[in-house]
């Protein structure tokens, strides 16, 4: 089964925490306070994920039609991302497991971690973990 995922580690991609993109995200997140010393919203790395091209991303091998987003976690060792910061993002699959659902169907899980590193120092700015679930293909 493990051969179903073609790529367990993606390419490192450079990006900048850009003021305009952060401003739009803040508005979408219905922020009412003034920007706190120009930091990006805590979930802003979601925008980074969608800028990666399919070739840069990992491939879980999961069927998109049966794919669920189970959860998402953001770890900031030194606080939130600052606007203007230049980072490198790289995805990898860090965990895979299976569980039986309440109706007996097999659910397959994959945890994909994106590491965001400072482009010049290499220091980790954030770990972003998303839990993906592939539901059983059998009719319930």
């Amino acid at each position: 089964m493990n051969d179903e995922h073609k790529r367990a580690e993606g390419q490192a991609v450079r990006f900048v925490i850009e003021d305009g993109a952060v401003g739009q995200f803040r508005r979408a997140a219905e922020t009412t306070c003034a920007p706190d010393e120009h930091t990006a919203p805590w979930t802003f790395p979601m925008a980074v994920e969608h800028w990666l091209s399919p070739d840069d991303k990992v491939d879980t091998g999961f069927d998109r039609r049966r794919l669920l987003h189970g959860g998402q976690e953001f770890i900031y060792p030194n606080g939130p991302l600052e606007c203007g910061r230049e980072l490198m993002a790289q995805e990898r699959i860090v965990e895979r497991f299976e569980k039986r659902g309440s109706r007996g169907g097999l659910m397959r899980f994959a945890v994909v971690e994106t590491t965001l590193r400072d482009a010049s120092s290499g220091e980790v700015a954030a770990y972003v973990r998303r839990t993906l679930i592939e539901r059983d293909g059998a009719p319930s």
Partner: protein
Amino acid sequence: MTWKTVGGTAPPRNFGPVTTATLVRYAGASGDFNPMHYDQDYAKAAGYPGVFAQGMYLAALLSTYVAELFAARSVRRFGVTFRSQVWVGAMLTCSCDVIEVRPCDDGVRVVVSLELRADTGSVAVAGEAELHVSDEMWAHEDPNDEPVNPRGVSQ
């Protein structure tokens, strides 16, 4: 009575109603253009009663709530799990319970348990955050510590 103690509950905050426009705005800001969240025909063809909110849009609202309760700078960890769908028209309430407080170098580490509920009563998003809060902010008592309610939605 301060809520800033283990077992305390912060003032809740309302968001909503969820509209197609708020979902499109989040789609644009995040770059996630899955049509399930703004195209009624597409969602119905997939067997849903209509479009529903991106889980990460709801997570973004929950993070806005916590960031404005403490400070955007305070975050060290923010995690969510998705429990149920939220449909267009829903009103939302965010809540925050303090589950752990421990002193650290220059302030306190606070762990909070979070929920975002739709007005149908079901929990849509459950979450947890770990925050690094300054001593001044943790000790600060705001006599007007009312729920932040930017759109004037009644409780």
